[in-house]
């Protein structure tokens, strides 16, 4: 006996009804959802009532998607933080009584004050639900088991992935409270099918395994599911993880305050917007939607956050969006390459937009270099410049470093078209990170840091 009937298990998608709806029907559905959400937020959240009143717009005036785009203001993290500061922790951003709280999270506050995130019972279930679209599309079912190399703290991180496994009906195996070596022992003991990790940690476990004499390719892991930082949609990084684990690597792009908004495409080259529970725009510096195929800032509306509604929320993530049919069969909006970078990490070198993810992807083209690197941005003579510090592989002799640097510089020049300096360093000379890596160091004066507008945020 199985939890799902065989005919259901054979379905390619978790919700075949909406995941294959034509764009026009999806947009009609979005309009109904948006109008429902806006009326809800206006009635229940003092912060939203103030925001809409200030912009002289009433919920009933949003009759079309164009009204939504043109008339409703964006909201940024700073406004949520200001609303929370009125009466900490949640202030008047809150739209539900605390009786309905199911769990609360907070961001790290690395860019200032921590942002508090309330989840109701409904939003906790739906955060989980948003992961299940990924699990189902890549072939994970209730019979599979999922390993959480994660410490279950106050950060949202992989909590929602856990809620998703509960929602799917799969088996949770917790690696909380253990060091990396003990986790490897636990993986050998419990033989889970899938592991959750940041790309950085998935690769870091490889180093720990090497030291412990463990071959990750011989473990039970068939799926490495990454989130928390770009990497899963960067072919070279994904390949490095797959080679290390002898497993397929998939990603989900989420944002702490929004949830798991974009499950990865089963074809692995990008992510889809989870259109059951999120609406998105991609906008230029002036806040105008860019045409499909172009890059801009990702603006997300969540239908899940009934505790603290987020409508036209500025993520400060750069994405390229497209409505072109995807080979996987879904009609949901597709973002090839996943998150391309942060708006505030974007560089303009001699007029060319340079995304950190593009630099990472190209580094892997040079044999002899590793995934341990840092990007240092600076400014000189009215131009941004970028220097890459990257470790060589242990089998490369030190007298070969200069040749590797020249080779990498040549790759950047030929593909991106600008000069990017490369410094090759000995193995183990750069810091190691267990969760998210800090790879981008901005030495530019603040006034020269190009942004679409506004302030930075934190990724989930």
């Amino acid at each position, binding site marked *: 006996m199985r939890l799902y009937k065989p005919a259901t298990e054979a379905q390619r998608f978790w919700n075949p*009804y*909406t995941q294959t709806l034509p764009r026009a029907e999806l947009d009609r559905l979005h309009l109904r*959802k948006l109008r*429902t959400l806006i009326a*809800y937020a206006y009635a229940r959240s003092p912060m939203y009532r103030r925001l809409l009143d200030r912009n002289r717009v009433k919920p009933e005036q949003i009759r079309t998607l164009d009204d939504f785009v043109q008339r409703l203001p964006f909201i940024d993290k700073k406004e949520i933080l200001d609303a929370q500061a009125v009466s900490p922790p949640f202030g008047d951003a809150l739209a539900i009584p605390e009786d309905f709280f199911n769990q609360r999270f907070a961001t790290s506050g690395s860019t200032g004050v921590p942002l508090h995130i309330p989840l*109701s019972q409904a939003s906790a*279930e739906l955060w989980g639900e948003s992961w299940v679209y990924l699990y189902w599309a890549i072939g994970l079912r209730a019979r599979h088991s999922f390993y959480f190399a994660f410490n279950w703290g106050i950060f949202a991180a992989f909590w929602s992935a856990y809620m998703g496994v509960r929602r799917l009906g799969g088996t949770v195996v917790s690696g909380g409270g253990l060091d990396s070596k003990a986790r490897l022992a636990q993986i050998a003991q419990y033989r889970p099918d899938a592991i959750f990790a940041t790309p950085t940690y998935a690769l870091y476990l490889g180093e720990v395994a090497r030291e412990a004499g463990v071959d990750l390719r011989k473990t039970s892991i068939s799926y490495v599911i990454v989130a928390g930082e770009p990497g899963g949609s960067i072919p070279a990084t994904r390949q490095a993880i797959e080679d290390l684990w002898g497993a397929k690597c998939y990603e989900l792009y989420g944002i702490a305050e929004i949830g798991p908004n974009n499950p990865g495409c089963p074809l692995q080259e990008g992510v889809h917007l989870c259109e*059951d529970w999120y609406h998105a725009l991609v906008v230029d510096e002036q806040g105008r939607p860019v045409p499909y195929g172009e890059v801009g800032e990702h603006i997300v509306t969540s*239908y899940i956050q*009934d505790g603290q509604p987020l409508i036209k929320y500025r993520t400060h993530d750069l994405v390229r969006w497209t409505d072109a049919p995807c080979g996987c069969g879904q009609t949901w909006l597709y973002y090839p390459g996943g998150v391309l970078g942060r708006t505030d990490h974007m560089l303009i070198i001699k007029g060319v937009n340079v995304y950190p993810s593009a630099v990472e992807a190209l580094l892997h083209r040079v044999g002899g270099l590793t995934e341990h690197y840092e990007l240092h941005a600076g400014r000189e003579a009215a131009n941004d410049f970028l220097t890459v510090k990257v470790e060589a592989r242990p089998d490369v002799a030190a007298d070969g470093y200069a040749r590797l640097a020249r080779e990498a510089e040549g790759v950047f020049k030929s593909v991106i078209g600008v000069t990017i300096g490369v410094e090759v360093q000995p193995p183990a000379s750069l810091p190691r990170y267990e969760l998210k890596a800090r790879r981008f160091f901005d030495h530019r004066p603040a006034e020269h840091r190009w942004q679409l507008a506004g302030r930075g945020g934190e990724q989930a």
Partner: protein
Amino acid sequence: MTRNEILAALADIQARARAIRDAVDNPTVERVAQVIELNCHVARWDLGDVEALTPEDQSR
């Protein structure tokens, strides 16, 4: 079942769960009814039947 039949059945179950929720004073039964109501709401939303953001908004 057609989509419309499924939606009608879900709406019916949701209304019955809501009635139980309102009628009982047994915590375990009331909680079960809450969960049923929520999941019916989610299933209806997933099939494009959008009436309210939360089950509470729909029923109250």
